């Protein structure tokens, strides 16, 4: 323990992991939810049905709460490359730094520059301009995903240049951007943000319906979510499969850890697939294991026999392969398990829809159906975090796969500095996490304000609401106390 606390590299890694895991929680929702906001605002402009307008206003409250924490926790992500990973920054700045620069100038600024109009500009700009602002926010957020995943994919499968005297010299920037992992990783993350957001919106909608609040209003959002989930959930599983196939070809050490495979399975033969196991790193074996015979070929390639060998961890020196095999192994299973569960929930929901059980009159009676949706709300986050653990812990001991070791990438700082900042992050982020849950649930308990005047429709009678559940939630809050 003392050894760990005086090890700058380990502390810097822990700090990066902690800040990244915490940061990921917020943009994963805002990026996907921005697309949902574009959809409902577009539906409002097209149909002029005030429900859609109120959906845009209600969900954007949760959006901005998450966005604020995302902005705040994003700063340390960028600056840590300089503070804690200075040798890495120097070695890869030509490409990696440029990409972070693009992300800031192209994506992040676009999102921030139009966010004010999207949130506060309703009465100030024409609805079409407002819609353009919402589109720009969504576009900016998803461009961010693109550039960050370009940068991270390049760490997984470096391309477009080579290491010369400890510095990565880029010969072809476009080849580096279009590195082998890029397309599939960007798609996997794009659908991950979308899927997480869909099930959060769906889960919250289900909670309202279950509690008999605004059933018709939230049946609408649940149906939008469901329509999108029909495409998103199976596609995400398929892209996930393609991503695993890439790991098989480009990162054999990671695949071996994902499968807790110690011994090599040769090409041209079937191999067993491990369903559950207890990996034992010091003994270089699994203490126990439940396997499905001959399944690995089908899982990796839809074929009974492997076309390439699947290398076992023992093929490498312990210093050249990832540690924490159990973490990688179970994170992978949790992520894929959630992917299949959400697809299953989608199929069940479609069946209910076809049976007519999701009509506004009947939907509130589907108690178990609604409870399952509420249960599914946080699953997307868990899957995303698990996926990133597989991706980045599985990449070890490399920061730039096969080129720069993590141990060589860290700044030589006094361990006490990093320990202090790490402790502060742990404390501050715990407070922020609890506070966000508290205030988020408060927004949800307050519910939508269906009395908000709809732009351009001020003179029309208000739509049906239930006065008993109406809670005013406006600024300044002093007026309510």
């Amino acid at each position, binding site marked *: 323990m003392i050894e760990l606390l005086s090890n700058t590299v380990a502390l810097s890694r822990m700090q990066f992991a902690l800040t990244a895991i915490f940061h990921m929680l917020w943009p994963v929702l805002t990026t996907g939810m921005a697309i949902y906001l574009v959809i409902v605002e577009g539906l409002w402009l097209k149909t002029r049905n005030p429900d859609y307008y109120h959906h845009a206003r209600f969900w954007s409250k949760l959006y901005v*709460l998450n966005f*604020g*924490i995302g*902005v*705040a*926790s*994003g*700063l*340390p992500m*960028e*600056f840590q*490359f*300089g*503070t*804690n*990973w*200075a040798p890495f*920054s*120097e070695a890869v*700045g*030509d490409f*990696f*730094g*440029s990409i*972070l*620069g693009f992300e*800031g*100038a*192209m994506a992040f*600024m*676009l999102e*921030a*520059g*139009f*966010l*004010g*109009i999207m*949130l*506060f500009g309703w009465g*100030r700009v024409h609805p079409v301009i407002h819609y353009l602002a919402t589109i720009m926010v969504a576009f900016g957020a998803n461009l961010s995903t693109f550039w960050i995943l370009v940068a991270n994919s390049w760490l997984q499968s470096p391309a477009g240049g080579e290491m010369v005297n400890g510095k990565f010299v*880029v010969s072809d*920037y476009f080849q580096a951007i279009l590195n082998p992992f890029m397309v599939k990783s960007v798609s996997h993350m794009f659908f991950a943000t979308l899927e997480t957001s869909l099930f959060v919106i769906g889960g919250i909608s289900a909670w309202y319906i279950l509690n008999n609040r605004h059933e018709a209003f939230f049946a609408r959002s649940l149906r939008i979510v469901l329509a999108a989930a029909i495409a998103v959930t199976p596609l995400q599983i398929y892209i996930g499969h393609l991503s695993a196939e890439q790991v098989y070809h480009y990162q054999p050490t990671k695949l071996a850890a994902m499968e807790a495979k110690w011994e090599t399975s040769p090409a041209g033969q079937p191999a067993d697939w491990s369903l559950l196991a207890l990996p034992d790193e010091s003994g270089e074996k699994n203490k126990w294991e439940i396997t499905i015979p001959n399944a690995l070929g089908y899982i990796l390639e839809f074929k009974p026999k492997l076309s390439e060998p699947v290398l076992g961890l023992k093929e490498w020196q312990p210093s050249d392969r990832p540690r924490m095999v159990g973490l990688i192994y179970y994170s992978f299973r949790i992520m894929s398990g959630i992917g299949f569960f959400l697809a299953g929930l989608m199929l069940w929901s479609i069946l209910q829809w076809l049976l007519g059980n999701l009509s506004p009159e009947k939907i509130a009676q589907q108690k178990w159906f609604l409870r399952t949706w509420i249960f599914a709300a946080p699953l997307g986050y868990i899957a995303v975090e698990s996926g990133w653990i597989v991706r980045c812990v599985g990449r070890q001991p490399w920061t730039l796969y096969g080129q720069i070791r993590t141990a060589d990438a860290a*700044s030589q*700082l*006094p361990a006490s*500095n990093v320990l202090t*900042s790490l402790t*502060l992050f742990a404390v*501050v982020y715990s407070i*922020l996490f609890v*506070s966000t849950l508290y*205030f988020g649930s*408060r927004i949800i308990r307050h519910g939508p*304000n269906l009395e908000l005047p709809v732009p351009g429709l001020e003179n029309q009678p208000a739509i049906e609401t239930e006065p008993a559940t109406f809670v005013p939630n*406006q*600024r*300044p*809050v*002093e007026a309510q*106390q």
Partner: protein
Amino acid sequence: MDALLHFLPQVWFVILGLFLFLYVMLDGFDLGVGILSLTSSNEERRSLLMTSLGNIWDANETWLVVMGGALFGAFPLAYGTILSALYIPIFMMIFGLIFRAVAFEFREHSNRKLFWNVAFGSGSFLAALGQGFALGSVIEGIAVDEAGHFIGSTWDWLDWRSLLVALTLIQGYVLIGSTYLILKTEGELQKTHFRTAKLAAVTTLIGAILITIATPVFYETARTRLFSPPLLYIFATIPLLGLLLVWLLLRSLNREEERTPFIWTILIFLLTFIGLGLIVFPYIIPTQITIYQAAAAPSALVFMIIFVGFLIPIMLFYNIYQYVVFRGKVAGSAYGD
């Protein structure tokens, strides 16, 4: 080719200067308003202060992210060396900005506002303090070996000169924050900030004079550069212009003009920036590593000019558009609901 090798880093030095200036000016008034909120007498005033920033603070903060990314890509060596050398002030700034940012979101929904008021005010103060120490120690110089790697100690950034710079920067932020509030508020609140602006103008001036005297006295490199023509004439003009601008600022404050104090303050910031830029140039890690030594490969600099450079006018355009949409005085609620 040789000319190009010199030209590209210079272009990036100017672009980074622009990003940093935009950040210091724009988030400067955000942080200034935050620091001023610590002295607000009541909740209603604090609400107005925060509402005046509600729609723009995060676009303003984003200039820091843009600047960081551009520095990382254009001068990777400087990015690693400076940030790891200034570990403590950088994390002071980061934690300060985190508190400031979350206060905006949480205060809105909270019944007990005191905690988030303190987070907003002290976060702004802490961020400004960290930035001031970082700026002060970069001007002073960072101890590096021949390859540009940091060889100093973790507390090198802390001495009375960087403290002087930090305190002056805080005064400057309070000044620009006050003049911004003069622009955005009316009545009693505006009157208060005519007073804080005058006070901050005087304290900023004192700090600036002390820094101007201390810089050539204590730093040999600055001295040799400052007192040799043709730069001598430029450096002689800057303090004179500065005094003129401060006089114009104080005059406009005495006349209770609404817009001009903000404009004079921006010009004072700009002038200071040009002065600092001239002292630092051509170093990116003062006082040893030049922009030519620390620059990324020419192909990287060109690549970034193509992708980032053409976005500068676009970014400026939609940021200005946002200010136009939200022009005028702040009233009660930013959400409008």
